[in-house]
């Protein structure tokens, strides 16, 4: 690595966990993910439909406006983060949300130089 040339370190074995919950509940998801070792999360707002339209009167109890939480995790972390997010978000309750995992081919971001030097050989 000569000075002046910039390097990109590609991360592999990366998964994307996406969790869609009702507006206002995204913070719970982010906290659960971080507690389970996820290093960051991105939240954006959206509107969505699903079981709400099929619940009849009870649909009132489900918010149309959603938060989408994107969490990038390593493949080893994936099961643990997935599970704790699912439980924290109470996704086993009707109308509470939906989540899925997408494999990512590669990812890149800032990685401290010492970490790369130590592990990257």
């Amino acid at each position, binding site marked *: 690595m000569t000075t002046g040339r910039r390097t990109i370190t590609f*991360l592999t*074995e990366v998964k994307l966990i996406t969790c869609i919950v009702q*507006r*206002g509940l*995204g913070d719970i998801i982010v906290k659960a993910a971080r*507690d*389970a*070792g996820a*290093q960051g999360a991105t*939240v*954006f*707002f959206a509107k969505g439909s699903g*079981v709400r*339209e*099929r*619940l*009849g009167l*009870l649909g*009132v*109890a*489900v918010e149309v*406006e959603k*938060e989408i939480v994107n969490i990038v995790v*390593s*493949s*080893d*972390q994936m*099961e*643990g*983060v997935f*599970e*704790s997010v699912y*439980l924290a978000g*109470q996704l086993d*309750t*009707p*109308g*509470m949300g939906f989540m899925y995992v997408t494999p990512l081919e590669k990812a890149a971001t800032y990685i401290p130089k010492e*970490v790369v030097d130590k*592990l*990257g050989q």
Partner: protein
Amino acid sequence: MSRENRSGSGLDEESVVTRHLSYNLLTPRIRRDLKGRIVPHVASAVKLNLRDVFRLLKNYVSHRFMEPFKIVLPVTLVLSVFQWNFLKDPLWLIVGMISGSFLVVIGLMMLVEGLRLGIFPLGELLGNALPRKLPMPAMLSILFILGVGSTCCDATWGWMERVGDAVDRGTIPDVQLLLLGRMGWVLLASGMAVGLALVLATLRFFHGWRFKIMILAVSLLPLGLTVMAWMDPWGKDVVGLAWDCGAVVLGPVTVAMFLGLGRGVATALSRGNETAWGLGMIAVAFFLVVAATLVLGTLLAATVSPEVVGPRLPILAEGTTVAADPSSGWMFVYRSAALSAVVAVLPMAGLMFFLLVLVLGERVQGVGLLLHGVVLSTLGLALFNTGMGLGLADAGGRLGQFFASALARNGMIDLWFDSGFMFGMVLFLVGTVAIGATLAEPGLTVFTANIESLSHGVARKRKLTRSMAFGAGIGGLVGVAGILANGIHLWMLAPLGLVILFAIFGFPEDWGTISWDGGMVISGPLLVGLIHPLGIGLGGRSHGSGLLFFLTAGAIVATLFTGRLQHGASSGSGIS
């Protein structure tokens, strides 16, 4: 590398059973008709078992209940300890107040949900349809009428007059008596001011005027009138009342409606980036109402001699008996609470429906949900009013009076030495109530939710609410210190007004608008019902008025600084 980042999930792996299921088994088979086109699939209704229904409702209700509960309960407890300790109130009175606070919590929960589902979307639909369907003059006249109507129906007024009434009928200055005895006139003048504010704000969206310039221009009138009134020996007393009126004028129902209207109109009309938020109506309305009240007060003072002021309206006086005599009072509280809730919600909701469907010919989707919201708002407001009437509102005024007389026994010089304890108690009480009432204010909840979704989550609801509550608390402390020192005077009000007016020039445009609108929104029924009587009790009518403006000012400044801290993130947070 991934191994390094791995962390123990800390979960009991055995507690979760996992299994797999092909999604193919769950999705419906689509059918095609003879021409090969897809027959639209109609999803069957989901039948939930009782356990799932319970869990669904529990999730829905619990955090909507807990949010106001966590705030109202501590405030009530503080008030009841004060009542017990200082006022030596009988136990049943305190128990009544605490049970009233539960009604307040349930009412707040329903009201916020109702405003969110009913009034706000109705306003947005109407606001969006108006510019599309009508020419500019017709649209502006309809907005004007909506402004007048909603102000006249608003419930917050009731608390101001009735509660103030319960405290001291003897010490009201003549000019204020003139105004309070003619609440109808004040309402009409304020209503026209609010209508004008709606028109001006809409013109701003259309022409893309800058908010800072506009608010500066609009504020010159009330500021000038204030200084003029202060020169007049008569006018002094009306100034505080006028500034209070400005803060009080928009109750939660009106706020939700205006936010919706603003957002709807702005998305249809706006050309600029910042104006697309549809904010600014509330802040403009504030100044115009102050101006209108000042003008009315001056005119009345000039034309009517004080002797003509007749006895108070009987309905106002009746409210005073509430706490003293529960057996006759509770039914009265309930009836008048229900009535004022119905008046606050139904006429305007009905008018909006009428305009949308019959005048504009819009096809409204989800009427059921809108009606649900309207009904919920009405019920919520009725419960809230009832709960407040069971002692909470009364407690503030009597505590204020108690401390006023306790402190008045000592001169100002001795205050710090002899009455340090009392002084501290007053500040503690005011701070607690101001922060608590702001946090739970229904209008503010709707407002911050609107800002959060407008900014796509950049301006977080919780953070915004907290900074406003903090600011209101500080403002309340300063204001009360002012009242205790010498009453609220021009030299306190005017610089404060100027400072927050010019402060927005140092801050980004969108945060200027948010902070001004938000600052005006906080003074809803909860804050007015609790803080205003405290101020009146402490300072009397002539010296205690104006306290609400300090809270507003505090909230504005705090929000501006929150915006400054976030500026890096929010500078590009416009709607486009």
